[in-house]
């Protein structure tokens, strides 16, 4: 599917500004952006719920079909699960018997075999969302549009559903345009990620590109990348000019790549060629446990850094002085 | 839906169906003689209107009385209806359906029967002021509309805001005044509009409760409705209609003001 210079205005306000985008068959494209950036509007525009003010949508095979799933399941309360799933078939004029059969079969792939005669309010949230997905998928859409579909579910259920949907998608081969604000969700499934601000696509790339080379500080900020500092600051720490192109004037480093150096231990000199590094000192402001160990907030002069440690055995103490080693090669550079 | 032009035509016919009967009404009120097939009468006169506002016509007395009764009825509806609607919307209890059906009964059962039975009450309530006893009968007729409208809004609102406010330490009154009432405004306006209008057009209950001595507008008008004097009846009908139009406009204005305030707040 190709969007070509699409603009959508609602009450004279431009929500989407001449946006162009292609989604390849079988691809999962994750769209991220702050609230109010026009994600939902774009989905509705693609689904045909909103008319395009200008621009056009084209498909590889002439006319494409879409399915749209919202954050809330929005199941028809007066219809059973089976009837909900068969709704789209009913619209297409499939005969009652035939569509009951199809919907019944489809229930199996949704793992809802026994719930066909239930009413929506008798289902759990995850089940409801699965029905909602099934309702869209039974129509074999070329492109499935998901508007934060699992946002209101708990983490484990969300992960289950994501992997279930991922497998389903790989099997059936439809493409997905997936709006989410969960970074982990995006990373786990996205073939490509797009970042949208104020109705404009800011950056498109595969997940690693997006994280390694955010196009701007705004994107970096949106992705909440840790330890973002200006080139100037880095140069202060390294106390030398860094060999970088002019355009890359900011850098970030993952908290896992910052290494805490114990007072006692000597710098490792085990023969492996060390790259450029810098050691800065500061003291611990805050300690936050995470899955791997602790995340520490370190104050160094006027800057704060985030550092992760591995292992739980040693509990860092607040106000403790500390030294951190920064490897130049682990810094990702981007432009403001 | 149907094809657009057809849709517009049907709505157009319906609109004319509702609107057009008012035109001859206006014409009739300004003429005494208007035989078929004249589209417009030959002679015009304002006699009917002068009669309306003469001592005999009692136009002002009727309007005034109607509004006093309607206002008391509205007050009664507020006092009785809002707590009832609130309780019905926010609580689950045994026999709730029965209670609800009793409150709505006058809507679903022709109330002529009850009004006949009220003849006797009317006498017992003689010590009450005519305005009050009439308003009681009007409350009976209007309460179901009011309760239903308010109830619906309470249902839409849910209990969450309430709980939030109560956790923040607001007492029941404050919850009602600060949280619920502002949200109730649209349905409160609709309910009040219905109460005023329905009360305003009641004949039988007014007649029975006041013994015919409280001359509200319908009591002034109805004797003429069977007199065959088209001109007078038309003039009275228009007079009757004017306050309703006014109320309707006020209702829409208030609604609009309320909406604007809300959208401003949310921005």
């Amino acid at each position, binding site marked *: 599917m190709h969007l070509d210079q699409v603009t959508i205005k609602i009450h004279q306000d431009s929500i989407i500004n001449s946006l162009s985008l292609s989604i390849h068959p079988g691809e999962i494209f994750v769209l991220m952006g702050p609230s109010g950036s026009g994600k939902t509007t774009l989905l509705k525009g693609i689904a045909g719920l909103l008319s395009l003010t200008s621009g056009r949508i084209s498909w590889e095979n002439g006319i494409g079909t879409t399915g749209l799933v919202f954050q809330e399941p929005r199941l028809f309360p007066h219809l059973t699960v089976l009837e909900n799933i068969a709704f789209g078939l009913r619209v297409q004029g499939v005969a009652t018997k035939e569509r009951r059969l199809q919907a019944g079969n489809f229930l199996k792939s949704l793992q809802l075999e026994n719930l066909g005669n239930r009413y929506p309010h008798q289902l759990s949230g995850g089940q409801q969302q699965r029905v909602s997905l099934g309702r869209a998928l039974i129509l074999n859409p070329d492109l499935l549009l998901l508007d934060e579909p699992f946002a209101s579910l708990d983490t484990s259920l969300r992960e289950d559903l994501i992997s279930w949907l991922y497998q389903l998608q790989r099997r059936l081969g439809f493409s997905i345009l997936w709006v989410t604000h969960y970074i982990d969700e995006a990373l786990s499934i996205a073939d490509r990620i797009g970042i949208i601000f104020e109705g404009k696509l800011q950056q498109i790339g595969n997940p690693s590109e997006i994280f390694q080379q955010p196009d701007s500080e705004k994107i970096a900020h949106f992705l909440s990348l840790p330890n973002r500092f200006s080139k100037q600051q880095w140069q202060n720490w390294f106390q030398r000019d860094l060999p970088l192109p002019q355009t890359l004037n900011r850098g970030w480093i993952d908290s896992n790549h910052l290494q805490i150096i114990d007072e006692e231990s000597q710098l490792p000199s085990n023969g492996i060629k060390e790259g450029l590094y810098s050691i800065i000192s500061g003291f611990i402001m805050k300690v936050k446990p995470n899955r791997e160990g602790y995340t520490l907030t370190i104050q160094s002069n006027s800057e704060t850094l985030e550092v992760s440690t591995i292992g739980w055995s040693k509990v860092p103490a607040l106000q403790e002085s500390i030294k951190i080693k920064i490897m130049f090669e682990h810094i990702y550079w981007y432009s403001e | 839906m149907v094809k657009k032009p057809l849709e517009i035509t049907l709505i157009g016919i319906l609109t004319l169906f509702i609107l057009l009967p008012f035109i001859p009404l206006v014409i009739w009120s300004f003429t*005494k*003689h*208007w*035989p*078929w097939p004249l589209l417009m009468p030959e*002679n015009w*006169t304002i*006699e009917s209107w002068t*009669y309306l506002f*003469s*001592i*005999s016509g009692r136009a002002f007395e009727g309007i005034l009385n109607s509004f006093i009764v309607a206002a008391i009825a509205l007050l009664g509806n507020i*006092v009785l209806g809002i*707590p009832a609607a609130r309780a019905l919307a926010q609580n689950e209890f045994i026999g709730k359906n029965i209670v609800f059906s009793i409150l709505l009964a006058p809507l679903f059962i022709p109330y002529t029967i009850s009004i006949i039975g009220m*003849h*006797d*009450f*009317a*006498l*017992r*309530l*003689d*010590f009450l002021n005519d305005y009050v006893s009439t308003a009681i009968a009007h409350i009976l007729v209007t309460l179901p509309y009011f309760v239903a409208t308010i109830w619906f809004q309470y249902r839409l609102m849910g209990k969450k805001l309430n709980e939030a406010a109560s956790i923040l330490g607001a*007492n*029941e*009154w404050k919850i*009602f005044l600060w949280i619920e009432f502002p949200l109730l405004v649209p349905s409160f306006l609709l309910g009040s509009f219905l109460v005023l209008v329905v009360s305003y057009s009641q004949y039988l209950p007014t*007649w029975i409760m006041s*013994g*015919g*001595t409280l*001359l509200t507008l319908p*009591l*002034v008008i109805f*004797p*003429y409705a*069977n*007199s*065959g*004097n*088209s*001109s*007078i009846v038309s003039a009275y009908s228009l007079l009757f209609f004017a306050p309703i139009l006014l109320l309707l406009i006020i209702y829409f204005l208030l609604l609009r003001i309320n909406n604007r305030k809300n959208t401003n707040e949310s921005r």
Partner: protein
Amino acid sequence: MKKSRCINSILIMLILFLSACTSDNKNETKPIDKNILTSDWKGIKDNARGTKVNFFMWGGDEGINKYIDEWVAPRLKEKYNVELKRYPMDATEFINKLMTEKKANKTSGEMDVLWINGENFKIAKQEGLLLGPFTEKLPNFQNYVDTESDDIKYDFGFPIEGYEAPWGKVQFVFAYDSSKMTNPPKSISELKDWVKKNPGKFTYPAPPDFTGSAFVRHVLHYQTENYKAFLNDYDEALIDNEDDKVWKVLNEMKPYLWREGKSYPQSIAQLKQLYKNGEVWMTMGYDEANASNLIKSGEFPDTTRTFVFDKGTLANSHFLAIPYNAPNANGALVLIDYLLSPEAQLKKMDLEYWGETMSLSVDKLSDEDKKVMESIDRGKATLSQDELSNHRIPEIGAEYVQWLERGWIENVGKK
């Protein structure tokens, strides 16, 4: 907590209210002065001074309303210092109201004077809803009313015995548009012929409408040989023998009536409307001056004239009565007496307000009043007094009337 207090107080009020309802509240109303019927006229007049009297009457005619509100009320205030308030209400309605009050033993009501006749009077008198014989108290009744004539002694065949005072007399007349027809029919059979020649141009209101019911009685009068028998006590066998003839004539006419007799106007108001719009060429009414009145106000075409049948048309009187629980019986007596004064009656006869025939006896009037009476213009469509009084037939008993009304619905209306 405040809220619960509020609810509590509402509850307490309601309970008080309920208990008040169930307890007897007789002491709330003061019993009226029963001596009124024995006190003398001067005392009555003095007692009435400064009081307010409630006059309950049919309110569908602007002329009559104006007569009461604009002519009678100011003069009553000036002469007797009695305030008059008119309440528009149909007779059946206030009789029903009175009935309920009687059952509840309500000793002080709201109504002082009632405008009634016929069936309603009969019920009121039989059920004890009226104050008592009072007409002989009234100076104007004594001086100007022919107390011995049948239409003063009987109301639809029911003895009056002083329970109501005659306010006016009306006679049934037919009205027609002289620009559309010249020779109006003079009997039921002529009417039948005319109707056949001019299909769709005549109809009558469906009984139990008062006027329609009266029209049916004219058919009875025309068909029966012993009309006089109907003036006496009710005898079902009598009417059982005669009614078929009545239905026969009406059903013969039916196909040639307006709307082929499939439907009738529901009231005299609708018949007048049809006449005004020109759908029918004739109308009728229990008021000989009504046509003139409507010509004057511009509602009827100028060419409208009235006629009576050769064998006559029905005439009756209408009356004023005082309910048993009138809160101001003194005022009521004063008002009734004033309404029976030559001054008020002559004004009533004037087309300016009403135009209706007096209930007073012309012979008893002073010469001056007689002159005034002769000078009154009763309108071009009103027949002369002589022509009217020479073509009068009395009303039959109220039970027969009801019997005919119900019979018409069964035998003519539903067919």
